[in-house]
């Protein structure tokens, strides 16, 4: 239950190192570079949204109607309420769908 797989531990530590690099990177960069070029900044700004989109888009596209409807409802909720409300909405839709319609 609490065993450690060496490969998994190595993976976790690698993830920790790259995460730390991103957290110190901006400080190092700004004390070296006077200004980040505008196009580079635009590209950096777009990275998180682009990556997260690639993770959820195929799930939406390949998912059943239950997942599709849940994600659409959650998205609409997210325009007005915080992310935690989206989780609740998506979960309620999926559970309701599976209970009443079947999935």
């Amino acid at each position, binding site marked *: 239950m609490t065993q450690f797989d060496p490969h*998994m531990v*190595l993976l976790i530590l690698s993830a920790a190192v*790259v*995460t730390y690099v991103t957290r110190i990177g901006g400080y190092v960069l700004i004390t070296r570079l006077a200004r980040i070029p505008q196009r580079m900044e635009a590209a950096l700004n777009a990275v998180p949204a682009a990556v997260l*989109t690639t993770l959820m888009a*195929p799930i939406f596209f390949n998912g059943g109607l239950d997942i599709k409807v849940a994600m659409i409802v959650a998205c609409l909720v997210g325009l007005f309420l915080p992310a935690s409300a989206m989780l609740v909405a998506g*979960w309620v839709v999926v559970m309701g769908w599976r209970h009443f319609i079947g999935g």
Partner: protein
Amino acid sequence: MNRADFFEGLRGGTLVGLASVPFGALFGAIAHGQGMSLGELTLMSGVVYAGASQLVGLDLFGHDVAAWLIVLSILAVNFRHILYSAAIARYIRHFNGVQKFFTFFLLVDPQFAETIKRGEAGKSVSFAWYLGLAAMIYIPWVLASLVGGLLGSLIGDPRSIGLDVLLPVYFLGIVVGFRKRDNFLPVVATSAVAAIVAYRYVGSPWHVSIGALAGVALAALLPPVKSNRKPNLAVENHEV
């Protein structure tokens, strides 16, 4: 160490710490569902300490992806931190080396938001205050992960309690939070289409790199937006 500052940090972090608990528990439960042991998932929350990227890692574990690609994806999701540490640089210059080491390790989204808020309000950002705030976020996060893992081990099939929908909705939530950024819709639409096509014709996990690259390339190529609006980093992100 200034005790008053430390306690002010603790107080300031209470709400954020509570808000991160469900996400920590979500990570723990899904991690356990993906076959991580309680020790491994707690270790991951303790040393990576970046919720979205931890969940990205879990999503890819399920796809039998090469380890280097998982690490690369985690790097990509955490890229935003580069902007954070650049932005807080002016407030933490007076920290010593050891303090800076921990400052950057603890620099999660709400920690950044609170630091910027305090700095911009003209109050001094002391290490004691920063550490107090961080303790209120870090400790609940790690504990919630462990508890989520324990609960996950009590539940058999993640789908039976609707856990499978939470991961895509969680990612969706972060993406929706970015909607005020320059060129948001073209970037997201491009990444989505590229990812779906790549998923179908190239195969997982390449849809992540191909889709992300398509959106980022578009962002770099699009003409700069006139307003030159800065991303409002302080209000976009609420979780670890």
